[in-house]
């Protein structure tokens, strides 16, 4: 499977998940399971675990707000009837199931290329060069920002300006930390733009590295796209079938 096929499959599945009712979601889960078994193999557990880790805090939060606090489902609120916690729970379950399948599909699509570097995946995408370059630079700068956070945080702890734990000093000097992170990043980026990249011809080398790899859409990609489209067509219909 190519990155283009995985992206197309994921986009259609995500849109379908947003318009599907509970029965439609069951069809989406079946399609996601088939995709996991065929394309990802035994590593599907990793995708499921990652999706669970993203969704678990969200599910707990939604249970807290809807079931424990509000105690009614949105349709009961709209109809201005005294609701039940059971209806609120059913609503939270549907929303969480919808979001879980979205996260799962995105994780599965990502996991298809687990053995490849982000650069190789972006290289394979059929997208304008500017878009690919922006994606590569964003991923690279997220790393730069993370390094800047580590450096600034360590330096400010060492100099006693902020502390490791919660403290009033952190609240007072948090701004210094933010400014320090920003300036560290800007310094690194200015240095790269002005000196490092021109000397190493990094951007010149980036063009052939990411522009030349546009992979053709394969039969396998088209098959999965057809599956996703069929599921996307059936998902809303499944909700209407048997409805009162």
């Amino acid at each position, binding site marked *: 499977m190519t990155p283009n096929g995985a992206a197309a499959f994921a986009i259609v599945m995500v849109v379908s998940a947003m318009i599907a009712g509970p029965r439609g979601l069951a069809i989406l889960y079946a399609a996601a399971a088939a995709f996991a078994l065929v394309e990802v193999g035994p590593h599907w557990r990793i995708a499921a675990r990652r999706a669970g880790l993203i969704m678990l805090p*969200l599910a707990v939060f*939604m249970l807290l707000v809807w079931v424990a606090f509000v105690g*009614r489902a949105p349709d009961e609120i*709209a109809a201005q009837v005294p609701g039940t916690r059971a209806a609120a729970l059913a609503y939270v379950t549907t929303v969480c199931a919808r979001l879980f399948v979205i996260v799962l599909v995105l994780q599965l699509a990502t996991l298809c290329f687990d053995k490849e570097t982000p650069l190789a995946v972006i290289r394979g995408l059929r997208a304008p060069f500017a878009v690919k370059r922006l*994606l590569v630079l964003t991923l690279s700068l997220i790393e730069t*920002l993370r390094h800047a956070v580590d450096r600034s945080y360590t330096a400010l702890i060492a100099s006693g300006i902020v502390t490791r734990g919660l403290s009033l000093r952190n609240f007072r000097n948090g701004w210094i930390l933010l400014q320090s992170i920003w300036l560290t990043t800007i310094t690194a980026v200015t240095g790269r733009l002005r000196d490092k990249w021109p000397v190493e011809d990094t951007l010149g080398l980036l063009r052939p590295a990411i522009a030349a790899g546009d992979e053709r859409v394969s039969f396998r990609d088209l098959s999965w796209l057809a599956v996703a489209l069929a599921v996307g067509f059936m998902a809303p219909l499944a909700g209407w079938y048997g409805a009162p």
Partner: protein
Amino acid sequence: MFTTPRLIAIALCAALNFSVGTIVYFIKLPIYFDSIGTILCALLVLNDRTTAFLCALTAAVTATIVTGILVNPFLPWFVGTDVVIALVSALLTTRGAQAFRARPMHAGRFVGWVFAAGIVTGVIAAIVSAPVVAYLFGGVTGSGSAFVVGMFLKAGQGLWNATLASGLIIDPIDKTLQVLVAALLYRATPSDFIAMVRGAPARP
């Protein structure tokens, strides 16, 4: 329009949106803090309003896609809010750019611009995002502001009213804080980096 230094600025601002927005999302503060980079991008790329808007929008959409895939599945549905934040930043917030970088700082003008830009951005963002929150997610998303929506619902408000009221309370405060942070970061950014991004000779 998308020169290499501008692409770098866009990517940096997208990374800023992602990093700060993710932290705030995980600790469930009743604010969002996921548009600092969008506002900052408009301020940094201030050659003309169209360029500022397009660069800010690109930073916002890039951050939304990355965050949506990696962390927050709710976020991609708020891409319309990204558009209006980028638009207001390019049309209004950038008018305060001189006040944000004035040395010495004129506190009154600085604070005035921060409040004006923050409140206008917040009110418009609240109006644009309310239908998504109400009709797509039933009023409650994963952010800490859901507690405020919950409070309104508990008090007997309808779904639409609760969502809009919550947005109109939280968004202006959130966006004012975001404009404040973006303005302070813009103020702290070295002149030579801004000149590089704008493609103009450096000014002191």
